[in-house]
Structure formats: C-alpha cells, structure tokens
C-alpha cells in the first residue's frame, strides 16, 4: 500500500500581527497574525527544517528521490532540491527535482511519487513543500500571505497513512500569476476570479473525485480544503456539506496565513497530528486545476507523535516588534549606500568544504575521541594527523557556553548574537543565534542547529547553520 511513512512541518518563529500592518498603512485590520520567515530564511531553509522534522529517526541514506515544491524557489535557475539533498547528506544517486508554478504542486508530487514507487524506481520519496512569500507592501496579499513548510516521506512499506485514491484535473483559468521579472503576484477582479474560477471549479472537482472514489463527504473524519482566503474556505466547506465543527480542518489564516504550495501540506500535517487509526481524510488542492486525495490513517501514526509539526511550531513564537522590521526581513527597504560592508564568497571554498559547511559534518579523532569542527588536518586536542571519522553535528543539541550581542553587526537586524556552544557528546561550535529574544538568552541555555542563509554576498545565497534556543 502506497502512502505516507512520515510527516513534518515548519512554521517560522516570527509572527506579524495584522494590526501592525493596518497601523502602518491605515485602513482596516485583518484578524490575528501571520507567520513570517526571519531575514535569514527562505523557502529552501524552511524546507530543510520541515524535512529534518519529518526524518527524525529515519536513515537519510534510505531516501531514493527528493521533490522540492515551491512558488518561491531561491533561484530562478539552479535546482534547490540538489542543495537540500546535500544539506541532508542524501546518497549520491538520489533523484532530485524542483516543482514550481502551481500552489497544488505538493499533491501533484504525491502522484509522481506513487508512479515512481509503482514502477520500482524508488522505494522512499521525500516531498518537501515550502514558500516564503514576498508581497507588495500595502496590498491584500500582504495581509493574507504567510510563510511555512511541510514535508512527507512517501513509500509502500507499512505507511502510517495510506493514500487510497487520487483524482487530478487541469484547468488553465488565470487566478494569480507572476511574470518572470516581477517580484509580486498579479490577479484580476475578485468577482471574476472567485465567481467564475475557484467557487465554480472547486466543488465540481470534489464532486467528480468523490464519484470516482465511490465515496461521500460524510465518509471522511477530516477534510482538508485549499482556499484562496478564509471566506472562500468557509463557503466551499458549506457547499460540500462539510461539518465545520467536526470535519473541517482549520486553514490557519489567522495564525499562519496562506503559505502557497505549503498551504494544503501544512493543513494535512496538522490533521495527521490529531488523527487516530482508522480515520479517513479527504484532501483537496487547487491551482491550475485540482488534486483530490482520499487517505486512511493506520496504527503506524502513533510512531510519529514526536514530530513537532504545526502544533508545536505554532506554539513557539516571537512577535515582529514593528512593521518596518518585517520589510527588512523581506529585503523591501532601500538602504543608504555604503551603510554596510560588501560581503563575498568563494565558490571553490564552498565547493570543497560542502560536507563541513552545508551538511555540518565534523570529525571525531580515532586516537583521543575529540570532536573537531571545522575540518582539521591535525586533531585540535592530540595533534594526530589525519585519523578522523565523520561525525555529524547538525543533529546535536548543546548548551550556550558564552555569548555576546553585537550592535555593530552587518546583518540586517541588530544585535547579532554571537555564541559559543558546547555540544552534547563533545565538540564546540562558534556561530550566531537566530530567532531570538536577546533579553532571554543566557549561559547554560539549551540550543539546537537551524539551517539559514548567512548572506547573499557575491550574488548567491550563502547557506550555513546557526543556533537557536530549542523550539517545540
């Protein structure tokens, strides 16, 4: 039986209240808040976070294929999936693929995974959906959109959730689109977009799918529905006869926002975190057509209870203190020239040290057992030459040994918190703490690694690891 072997999700630490946006521009406020990526995050780094959550206790080398789904890939040309595969230290012959352009890409990727597994080309497929959505200041999308990611490991060996039926239909209707050289989405008058588009197409697709699945909406314990906004979400549920109180999965408009291609995947993770064996789930995804899936939860779901998922990441948060900080996060502020030193990178260095820098794998001395990081030729402790075994440190937690707060930083948000961390099981790491409330940091606090974009010097995204106080 094909299905979901594991799931994970990621909600960035920062939340921007819609009151803050309204205060900045005048006019009415939306409800609640939205999740926003920090300045050092993008779709790729959030995708890594969701994958790390999903792959707890799972051998990364057992993965045969990785599909990375996003509307906001960090590069127009340059595959993000290959970078993520490097970060996760997947085996060299892992099949990697980027999927883009449609918000329903993740559920379409379920189909690709099903076909790959059926054909025998893969046994385990990792699907990651992630979006970091840049919107025009003072726009409707600014109120609506949020950032986040979800990941699923798919396969046919005793899945925790079986994927029983799938229905796919395309549609060339123009809802929203973005031109190659424009930063923000375009759309048309909403009476047309919804009246002739979503509100017509969605119920038809669900009805057709249910007919094909030989099921009725009442068969499902939970229903996960894509919607362009809260109002349409409620309307579609009503039109389909979904009971809002018991059956309808919450869409998180009021605490995360619309996360594009991660929207339905994140809702599905939230559903699975609450699901019990025997539950049947219907998912409906939309964008340039529709994907509808019917799933059944098995007893294997209990083994996945330690995932942070939506539930734990939602509970762990910090407020964006003022609206302009959000603009700085999204690089939407024009800075005075010469204000910050130019930062550069050397591609040859990044390339030859990728295992160290990107996969965050250190060395353990075979003679004295000392953990060495960054890469050494001679052990820092016993000075033996070249007697090392690989020693992953990305998955280790540690304690703050010392720290400082640099107000003269070149990073966009001050202070930059420098930190020396002593790792559980040995080893020491020097770096920055991110996603932090400077007032609460102290010596001895437990910290963990998080994958981030250090800077964009040299016209490329320079990824590395930072530390954060443990979430979830």
């Amino acid at each position: 039986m094909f299905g979901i072997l594991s799931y994970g999700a990621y909600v960035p630490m920062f939340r921007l209240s819609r009151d803050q946006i309204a205060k900045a521009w005048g006019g009415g406020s939306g409800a609640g808040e939205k999740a926003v990526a920090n300045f050092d995050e993008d779709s790729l780094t959030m995708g890594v976070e969701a994958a790390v959550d999903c792959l707890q206790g799972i051998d990364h080398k057992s993965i045969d294929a990785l599909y990375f789904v996003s509307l906001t890939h960090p590069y127009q040309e340059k595959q993000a999936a290959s970078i993520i595969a490097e970060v996760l230290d997947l085996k060299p012959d892992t099949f990697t693929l980027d999927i883009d352009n449609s918000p329903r890409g993740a559920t379409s990727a379920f189909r690709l995974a099903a076909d790959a597994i059926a054909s025998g080309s893969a046994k385990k497929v990792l699907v990651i959906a992630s979006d970091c959505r840049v919107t025009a200041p003072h726009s409707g999308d600014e109120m609506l959109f949020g950032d986040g990611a979800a990941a699923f490991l798919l396969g046919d060996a005793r899945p925790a959730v079986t994927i029983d039926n799938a229905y796919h239909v395309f549609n060339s209707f123009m809802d929203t689109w973005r031109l190659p050289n424009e930063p923000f989405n375009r759309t048309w008058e909403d009476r047309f977009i919804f009246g002739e588009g979503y509100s017509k197409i969605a119920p038809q697709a669900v009805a057709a799918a249910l007919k094909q699945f030989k099921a009725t909406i009442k068969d499902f314990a939970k229903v996960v529905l894509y919607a362009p906004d809260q109002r349409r979400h409620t309307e579609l549920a009503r039109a389909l006869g979904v009971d809002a109180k018991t059956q309808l999965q919450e869409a998180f408009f009021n605490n995360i926002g619309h996360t594009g291609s991660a929207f339905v995947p994140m809702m599905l993770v939230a559903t699975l975190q609450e699901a019990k064996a025997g539950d049947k789930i219907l998912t409906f995804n939309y964008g340039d057509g529709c994907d509808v899936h019917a799933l059944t939860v098995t007893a294997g779901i209990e083994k996945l209870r330690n995932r942070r998922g939506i539930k734990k990441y939602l509970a762990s948060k910090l407020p964006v203190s003022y609206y302009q900080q959000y603009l700085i996060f999204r690089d939407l502020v024009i800075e005075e020239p010469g204000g910050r030193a130019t930062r550069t990178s050397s591609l040859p260095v990044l390339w030859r040290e990728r295992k160290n820098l990107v996969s965050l794998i250190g060395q353990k001395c075979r003679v004295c057992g000392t953990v060495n990081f960054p890469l050494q030729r001679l052990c820092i402790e016993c000075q033996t030459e070249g007697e090392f075994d690989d020693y992953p440190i990305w998955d280790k937690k540690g304690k703050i040994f010392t720290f400082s707060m640099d107000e003269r930083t070149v990073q966009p948000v001050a202070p930059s918190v420098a930190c020396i961390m002593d790792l559980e099981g040995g080893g020491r790491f020097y770096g920055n703490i991110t996603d932090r409330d400077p007032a609460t940091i102290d010596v001895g606090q437990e910290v963990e690694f998080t994958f981030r974009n250090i800077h964009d010097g040299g016209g490329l995204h320079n990824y590395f690891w930072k530390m954060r106080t443990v979430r979830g």
Partner: protein
Amino acid sequence: MSGSIKDRVAIAGMGCTRFGERWDTGTNDLLVEAAYQAFEDAGIEPKDVEAAWLGTSSSGGTGMTLAEPLRLQYIPITRVENACATASEAFRNAAYAVAAGIHDIVLAIGVEKFKDSGMSGMGGGGTDGPGHAMLSQGLPPRQFAMLATTYFSRYGLSFEEGKHMIGRVSWKSHKNGALTRNAHFQKEVSMETILNAPMIAWPLGLYDCCGVSDGAAAAIITTPKIAKRLRKGKEPPVFAKALQIAISPRDGNYNSKYDWTHVEATVRAAERAYKEAGITNPREEISMAEVHDCFSITEAVTMEDLRFSPRGKVKDDIESGRFDLDGAQPIQLDGGLKCFGHPVGASGLRMMYEMYMQLQGRADEVLNPGMPSRQIKNPKLGLTHNLGGSPDGCAIFVGIVGLEGV
C-alpha cells in the same frame, strides 16, 4: 630555551608620534616623525642605521614602505606583521639581530594609517561572525564581549558588578590619557558616563572599547656598549630583559577545554618572559605595565594572566586602585590603547616608549601642559603586552625592559 635576551641589547633612543585622527598626515609623515625623534634621542644619523624592521598591519607592503620616506640607501629592511603584536615583533626581531652580533645599530619602527580607510571602527572587517569556510571571526567587540560574559558568569559577578569593574578600568585609563600630550583621547570620563554609554557588543559599551588611530613609534636598538656611549651625559639606556611571543593554535572556538576566562597564550608568554628575566613574583617585581586593553575586559583578564592579580580576584585590585597612576602597580600610564589610541602596527612600540620614558624619568616630557606629573617614582622594570587576534586564538607578546643591573 637555551638563550636569553636579558641585558644583551639596549635601547639608545625612541620616538613616538601623536596618535589620533591625523587627517593632514600620511604614512610617510608618521614614519619620518617617529624615526627622526628616535634618531635625535639616540644622537645618531640615519646613515648609522645598519638594518631596520618595519611593523605594519595594513599600511604598507615590503620594506620599501620604510626605505622610501626615509630614503634609506640599500640597507636590509624586513617588514613584519603579527596583528596587534606587530610593532613588538619588529622590536624582538631587531633585538635578536643585534644580540646575534650581526648588526650594531638597528631601527625597529611600527606604523599604522587607519583613518584613510573611511571606517570609524576597525576597517576591513565587514563580516559577521563565522561565514562559510569559518574564515571570519567577526569584528573584535563581539569576540571580547564573550570573554566578559564568561568571566562574569564564572566568578558570580552580577551584570552591574562586572560592568562596574570593567568600567573602572577605562575610567583609570581616561584619567591617565588626560595627562598625556600625544594621546588620541585626552579627556577624563565619569563612571556614570561610562556605565550609561551605548552598547557596542553587550556587555561591552562604548567606553569599554579602545580607539582606532593613526600613529607611529620607533626604537634604536644597539649593543649595551654602544648604547652607553651614545647616551653619555644623558639619561641611561634601557635594557631588554625579556622578549617573548606565544602564538596560540587558534582552537578556543572549537575546543571545549578553553574556559573563556583567560588567554592561554598570555600565560605562556608571560611565564617564559619571567623565566628569561629572572622574575618570580611579578606582582611585586614589575613596577608598571602597558598591556593590551583593546577592551576593558581584556585588561582585567590580562592582570590575572600576568599574575599581577590572583585568579578570579582582579576586581578587588581594580576597585581598590592598585593599577591607578598612584597605585602600587600602575597600568596604562599613558592612557593605554583606550586613550593613547591603537594604530595596530605601532602600538607595541608606543607601549615600549612609555616604559622607556618612565624608566629614564622623562615621562613628563610628554605631559599635557598644565597637568600634574605622570612620572612614577623609581620604576625598575616595565612590562609590555600585546594581544593580536581574539581570546580564542591570538599572537601574544610579553616584553620586559628595565635599567641596567635590575
């Protein structure tokens, strides 16, 4: 260690420019200013210089940086660089050439022209902690601030107690700097101002950080015999007692054994220097010192590393005024890096200059007009210390100079 520099070389003359924002002065001017002061003090002609060692961190390239402005004619010149220990490293190498009997009269000179860079802090940083390839440590304040965090935490100092301790370090240096004619900053600053200044890198505020300056300093090093001849009828020459460099393998950020409350290379260099000079109790035997107070916490920790204060107890000595100009063991008699300023390639020789002037009883020659005396009574041995790098990894110089027979 088979050899010792003790009493094998002497300083016949020294010079030091005004440190600060020398907008109207270039590298060449600074070098000429310092060198000609030293030539005059030693009573020699430029042609008497047989060889030279030029220290500069970023204001020059080869020995020609010195040969060109001084029009030195085809003599050997070595440019040295060892971060903030650069000038002292020039002095050490020059002294070794004399001790080896290769040269009789040599020039050690250090220069830095920082203020042409357009940066108000240390230029050329532009980085923010470890980027890819771990090449960058980040700018100095964040590194030394971590020293303060750990020191406070380990010895149970509250933020207020720790902050007052390091603030008192800078308060003392500003008091001394106000007396010193050639210092970059010549103003006393109140404890209240120091404690309430904006943070640069928590817990270090503005007055916990030293200045970044232009400047040059020079020394004429020769044999004891020649030095005595040159200084006949003048104040006596000053003798090298110990010159030690210790370079750490730079592992403090990676090796959990490093405690971040001391600087191991300072301890190592100091112990070697004490052995070389025959000193057993530095707290009592060293009359005075100029140490590397790039940040106030650095000076505090250095007092313990040099065994001037017992481990973990420097607060008592700082707060009781032991290191003040009128204290038992004055430190930073000219204002230190904090107030005299910090042109990286010149600082080590500036420190040596203050020790030299104090030992000869000439400190008031560079007194700020109208200010009380800076000269301390009967100094016998002076110590200089540089820290090039950051606590986790650095080049350390510890030198001891003194009068003959001490």
